[in-house]
């Protein structure tokens, strides 16, 4: 099928299938999926600038579908989401500006790329080890209906979130939906800001960084972290795709075709989270940052950036 805006010919079945797979991943893990969609569009023959912009626009649609589904299932902490959006936007802008500033220094790709590889690989190993340990922990003896969201979500290495929650700098907020009685708003803003900086540095929504940050650093239950992260992805991807469309980097027809598959996949992915507990979801999530690291390695070795 010929797409006149980007002057490309791509099989629509490929786009629907790609959207479907990304949709399932997004609904299940709360990530945008740019680490897979961008390269897959590039491989299909779409120029890189269109691959990035078109991918972001399709992420908007898919994330709205998945976020709505998670909201119905009670997996979005709206108070947390609104606070985090502020930190994420500020962090993303800082990350982008930081990259622009670092471009003036020679070998910036190598420096940023190496740091990214270490962070992503480390995160992948950490998530795997933590979820492995968490699966060995005894589940609560209370009936499921009487368990709090914190009790349902078994977690090892709790000291990290306990430390963040003990950071007592006013104003403090209560995240009732996430089962957190008091946490400094600055801690939430700081964590979301760091996530945003990583997003600005590494490209895409960087949900594969923000979701574990929410679980391990803030102590948010896994299911709520997934839903809340999707809400953030909607906001950041809308902003990003608007900017890309203004710059002529979006083929809306390709995005709409991908969305036909993604809309169905995202609902299936969101529903599937009901059948897995937190540690299993985190265990399945562990390879995702590693994929991001491999893409950075590919970019460094070939000079082609896949995001």
């Amino acid at each position, binding site marked *: 099928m010929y797409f006149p805006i980007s002057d490309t010919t791509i099989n629509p079945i490929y786009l629907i299938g790609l959207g479907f797979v990304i949709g399932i991943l997004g609904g299940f893990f709360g990530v945008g999926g740019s680490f897979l969609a961008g390269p897959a569009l590039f491989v299909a023959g779409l120029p890189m600038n269109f691959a990035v912009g078109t991918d972001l626009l399709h992420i908007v649609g898919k994330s709205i579908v998945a976020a709505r589904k998670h909201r119905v299932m009670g997996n979005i902490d709206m108070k947390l989401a609104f606070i985090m959006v502020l930190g994420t936007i500020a962090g993303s802008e800082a990350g982008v500006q930081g990259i622009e500033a670092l471009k003036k220094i020679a070998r910036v790709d190598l420096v940023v790329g190496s740091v990214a590889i270490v962070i992503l690989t480390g995160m992948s190993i950490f998530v795997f080890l933590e979820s492995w340990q968490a699966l060995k922990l005894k589940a609560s003896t209370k009936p499921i209906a009487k368990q709090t969201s914190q009790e349902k979500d078994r977690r090892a290495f709790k000291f990290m979130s306990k430390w963040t929650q003990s950071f007592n700098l006013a104003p403090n907020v209560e995240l009732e939906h996430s089962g957190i009685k008091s946490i400094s708003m600055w801690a939430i803003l700081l964590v979301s800001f760091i996530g945003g900086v990583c997003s600005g540095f590494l490209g895409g929504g960087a949900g594969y960084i923000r979701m574990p940050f929410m679980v391990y650093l803030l102590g948010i239950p896994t299911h709520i972290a997934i839903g809340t992260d999707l809400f953030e992805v909607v906001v950041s991807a809308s902003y990003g*795709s608007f900017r890309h469309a203004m710059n*002529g980097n979006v083929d809306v027809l390709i995005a709409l075709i991908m969305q*036909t598959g993604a809309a169905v996949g995202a609902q299936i992915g969101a529903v599937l989270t009901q059948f897995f507990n937190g540690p299993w979801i985190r265990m399945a999530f562990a390879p995702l940052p590693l994929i991001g690291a491999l893409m950075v390695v590919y970019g460094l070795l070939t000079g082609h950036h896949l995001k």
Partner: protein
Amino acid sequence: MKDFNWKTFACEMVVYAVLVFTYFWFVLHYFASSLEDMFHHNRKLFAVTSLLLMIGQTVGLEIVSTFLFKLFPWKKK
């Protein structure tokens, strides 16, 4: 989840998928050339329209599919 009904969910997905495909073909048939024209001559309008089309495809169609399900005998409990 004991109260989860796969049959209802599968029906929802089929209805939703049909609506999404119909929406896309409608856009492709009537708006493809207008979108291309906007892309070359009015980027701001193109950016706003692109976002609205995407949001329309997701939010609008979900509202329509939910409405349709209220009319069906296998509606959600």
